[in-house]
């Protein structure tokens, strides 16, 4: 090789190496960060679930920043602790908008806090994507976007799904005991369910309500046992379902078919009495949901992070999936419009469908709600599996009764 050729090759090699050193990877985000603000219940009675949403947000923001951020800019998530208090959430959202001057908002955890945040978002004309709002008819703001796909009338639609699931066993229940907490997002579902049961010919043999925070479930369990229903519909949130099951166990009563509205998924699946318990969900860790590569990747990350954070239940279900979907919706709207303008983003979301790990979401129905994607799941062999509708049921899983 001549000196000239060698020199050219050496120069080319140096130039190549220089380019590798000084030119950042094409996907690395740069510029001022896009600031997304939210609050979560990191302390207080809702903290157990609030932690789930914090992990999910952290995972999604890390995934974004590991690629190209949003619009090529890094993403910064500002999350404040609303202490499970809706009034504090209101103040903090005000602060996020006026003091922290965030570019975009993400919703807090649980209906009360979301309703507070929605009021603030409306006052400042900001878009609010949220993941866990339980009473669709209260969400009137035109720039709110729910990613917990309940549909606009879940008390009717989901209860019908549940009754269809029960009918699929060939031995549908003839009688039902409806026992429910008066917690707002639970109570309206239980009242709606009563109407559906009546229309579907299931006779109500007992209806009881208790105040949220009830400590003694013994008398309630005794009354359920006395009523001898074929099916026990429990409007329970969090631990209430387990508390009622514990009380039933103490009097040697096993409900023939039992459904819980929003149970604490970990304690219910771990309790021997929780076997064959039914509940609603939008996502479980099995096909067809895990066939989505994005979902598969998220499940692995979440399982590891949740274990590291010391959470007793590391599975991805409704909460984590709705939370991840909220970030997917935000990501999709910003990427498609190349804008951070709340009006532009909201207009795009109203007109377009977004693919998420729970399915395709749309926001063009009443109160910006789309389809009811709630499924019926059941504890079988120590794990939650979707049993209805058939097309999303876990492979080989069918609703089982005693």
């Amino acid at each position: 090789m001549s000196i000239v050729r060698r020199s050219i090759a050496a120069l080319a090699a140096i130039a190549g190496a220089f380019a590798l050193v000084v030119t950042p990877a094409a996907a690395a985000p740069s510029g001022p960060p896009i600031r997304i603000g939210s609050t979560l219940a990191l302390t207080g009675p809702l903290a157990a679930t609030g932690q789930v949403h914090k992990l999910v947000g952290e995972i999604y923001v890390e995934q974004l920043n590991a690629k190209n951020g949003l619009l090529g800019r890094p993403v910064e998530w500002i999350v404040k602790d609303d202490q499970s208090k809706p009034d504090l959430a209101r103040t903090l959202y005000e602060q996020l908008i006026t003091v922290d001057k965030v570019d975009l908002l993400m919703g807090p955890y649980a209906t009360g806090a979301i309703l507070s945040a929605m009021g603030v978002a409306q006052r400042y004309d900001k878009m609010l994507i949220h993941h866990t709002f339980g009473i669709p008819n209260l969400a009137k703001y035109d720039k709110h976007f729910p990613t917990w796909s309940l549909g606009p009338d879940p008390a009717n639609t989901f209860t019908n799904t549940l009754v269809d699931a029960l009918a699929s066993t060939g031995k549908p229940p003839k009688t039902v005991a409806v026992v429910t907490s008066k917690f707002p997002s639970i109570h309206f579902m239980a009242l709606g369910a009563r109407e559906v049961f009546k229309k579907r010919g299931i006779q109500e043999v007992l209806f009881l309500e208790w105040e949220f925070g009830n400590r003694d479930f013994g008398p309630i369990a005794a009354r359920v046992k006395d009523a001898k229903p074929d099916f026990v519909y429990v409007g329970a949130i969090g631990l209430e379902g387990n508390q009622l099951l514990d009380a039933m166990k103490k009097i040697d009563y096993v409900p023939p078919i039992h459904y819980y509205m929003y149970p604490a998924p970990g304690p219910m699946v771990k309790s021997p009495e929780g076997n064959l318990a039914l509940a609603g969900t939008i996502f479980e860790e099995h096909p067809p949901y895990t066939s989505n590569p994005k979902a598969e990747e998220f499940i692995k990350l979440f399982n590891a992070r949740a274990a590291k954070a010391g959470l007793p239940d590391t599975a991805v279900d409704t909460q984590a999936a709705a939370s991840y979907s909220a970030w997917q919706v935000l990501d999709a709207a910003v990427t498609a419009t190349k804008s951070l303008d709340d009006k532009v983003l909201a207009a795009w979301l109203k007109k377009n469908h977004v693919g998420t790990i729970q399915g395709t979401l749309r926001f063009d129905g009443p109160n910006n709600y789309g389809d009811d994607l709630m499924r019926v799941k059941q504890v079988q062999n120590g794990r939650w599996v979707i049993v209805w509708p058939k097309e999303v049921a876990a492979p080989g899983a069918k609703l089982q009764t005693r």
Partner: protein
Amino acid sequence: MTFPSSALLAQSVLSGVFVGALYGLLGLGLSLSWGLLRQINLAHFALAFLGAYISYQLASVGGMDPLATLLVIAPCFFAIGAGLQWLFARFEVTPLNSLLVTFGLTVIVEALIQWLWTADFRRLESTYGDAKFRLGSLYVPVPELLTLGMAIALSAAVWATLRYTDLGRSLRAAAEDAPVAAAFGVNERALALVLAGACAALAGAAGVCLALSYTLAPSQIYTWIGVVFAAVMMGGLGRAFGPLIAGIVIGVSEAVTMALTAPSWAPLVSFSLLIAVLLLRPEKL
């Protein structure tokens, strides 16, 4: 309203007795602290839950018998209670201020519990958990029976101590008239340390019972405050058996309400009873 079967009613009454015993056990230390030390100790509930979590940890991870955890918890909590009392005396905390200071302590203990055990639910699985037996048509769960037994035994021990020992007589004298008691050689400060330590140890005992029967979460500290305060006030401050008897009256009333009518009316019962007692017998407080 349809009248429930006798079996349902009897089972409900039994359930009320058991939950009432826990109200009484939680209220015992609070009542002594309020009545004899003149401190309204909201941190009593936080200590009870801290005791419950320590019992859970020692039994679940350490493999100890849940009841044996009391041997560790009681002396440790005695030291904590005495230490807090020393601080209260050092900074001359008044009865009203004790309410605020102990509320602050409650928030700190709640944060500590959440930091150590996370906000998730924790359930102590023990040999007692599933144990129960039948008495005629009644089902008697063993953990709740242990709570009732412990509540009766501790109330009796406190009653006997206050009535028959020099320590008890000195405590009552100091609570009645501290300067006169001091003139007779009663060391009020030392007694206060002992009493505060004992109250904290009683909170620990209540915590062990909580862990035996209930699933734990840090924020549940607050769900017991209202009804236990009602039991303490109805039972009379500084009385050994007062909180237990009042607790059982409240528990049974709530349970019968739930058996006969809508369970959502049950919370009204404890406070209606308290108002009735205060109106009819205001000298009880």
